[in-house]
């Protein structure tokens, strides 16, 4: 599909309306409820453990170049470095993309400065390894072993190398928390990591951690948007079932509106 049809335009407008309206409501100070997400509480635990052991934390922002999932990973990184800077703990960030590396460097530098310890920031901890997926994986495995990493946080989009990173982390005895929007890789994180953030929880992370009203509002808006999808699907299932037996007049069959072809 190269351009929006009317259905797409209206449908997206409804979703956008819910998300934006909830953001503005929350900004005006409406208090909002968010359910517990166990894996996200574990991030603090992981940083705490590294501090106790006096060893570094490893944070991987995934293997995509700049895109929404990587930006979300960077916003989680922001929280992690803030905490680590408070406790004077190192965060090593190996990256697969030069632009991401630069952004991560900026974020870390700021976090250490905000905690009053700009001298603790070491640019060598934010490393560009390679844009080759498996060269990157081999490099991360090396870092995990050589730097005696205490906690490994894997957030972002991952592909096949997910298991290499997570098993290597497990083998060095690191506490591991992982989250990815890539469905295919969740099983591998589930089997090797101590805590795994599943699917959508990944995008809920920054709201959950920071409790920033804008983000909380957005999260509630997302729930409404998902509810819209649920309703559309339910209506579609009923229409499809009825029209299967010719119980619906032809003009009431609206299902083709959602067929982009």
């Amino acid at each position, binding site marked *: 599909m190269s351009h929006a049809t009317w259905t797409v335009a209206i449908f997206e407008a409804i979703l956008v309306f819910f998300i934006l309206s909830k953001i503005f409501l929350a900004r005006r100070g409406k208090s909002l409820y968010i*359910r517990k997400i166990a894996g996200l509480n574990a991030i603090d635990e992981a940083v705490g453990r590294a501090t106790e052991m006096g060893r570094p934390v490893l944070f991987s922002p995934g293997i995509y170049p700049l895109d929404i999932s990587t930006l979300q990973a960077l916003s989680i990184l922001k929280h992690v470095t803030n905490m680590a800077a408070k406790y004077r703990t190192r965060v090593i960030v190996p990256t697969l993309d030069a632009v991401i590396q630069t952004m991560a460097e900026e974020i870390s530098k700021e976090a250490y400065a905000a905690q009053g310890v700009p001298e603790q920031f070491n640019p060598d901890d934010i490393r560009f390894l390679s844009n*080759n997926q498996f060269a990157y994986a081999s490099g991360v*495995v090396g870092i995990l072993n050589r730097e005696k990493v205490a906690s490994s946080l894997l957030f972002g989009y991952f592909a096949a190398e997910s298991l290499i990173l997570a098993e290597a982390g497990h083998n060095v005895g690191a506490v591991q928390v992982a989250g990815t929007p890539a469905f295919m890789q969740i099983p591998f994180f589930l089997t090797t990591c101590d805590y795994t953030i599943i699917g959508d929880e990944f995008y809920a992370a920054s709201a959950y951690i920071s409790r920033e009203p804008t983000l909380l509002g957005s999260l509630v808006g*997302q729930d409404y948007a998902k509810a819209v999808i649920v309703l559309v*699907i*339910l209506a*579609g*299932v009923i229409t499809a079932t009825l029209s299967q037996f010719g119980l619906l007049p032809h003009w009431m069959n609206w299902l083709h509106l959602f067929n*982009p072809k």
Partner: protein
Amino acid sequence: MVWLAAIITLALFSILYKENTAYRLAEHIFIGAASGYLVYTAWSQILKPMWWDKIVQGESYWILALVASSMFYFVFNQKYVWISRLMFGALMGLISGMAFKGFAGYNMDQIHASFKPVIVHGHSFSQSLGQSLSNLLFIFILLTVMAYFFFSFEHKSRVTSLPSRTGRWVLMFAFGAMFGATVMARMSLLIGRMNFLIHDWLPLVRRFFHF
């Protein structure tokens, strides 16, 4: 060549036992070679045909692209670091602008494919029944899984939280299936590597040591 490749292969495999000198060396060679390749392809596949050739052919306004790229490098200057943020902002804008198209392109098909009739009129009774049950289960799983991902609805009793708990169980089942389905593909790759060592390299070793 086979010798070199086999040695690097074995060095990388040695991580399975323990991190060691050979692995470190192979890892650094790999990262080095991949970076050299990155620089070479960045020029030969992108900058040469898409940028340099155009300037030489008279579209000299492409100099602007170089100026824009140079803004990234202001991260190294504390005073003008905001100029690099300008670039990050522009890239974030581009990425977020694509979201509308990306969302529709991916999800409209998915939504349309979910309009499954839960009572199917098939060729035979058993086929109709099977297909109906399959579709019903499909919709049930889809909805319970989505229920699991509602973050802002408070579940006060066990009844209201039932769909989301079911959703989590179904998810675990699906993840198990995904895991099982991937094993064969990964093993195939490993067999390919083993075959390289056994059939391409071992004969050379035998010839080398005359046994």
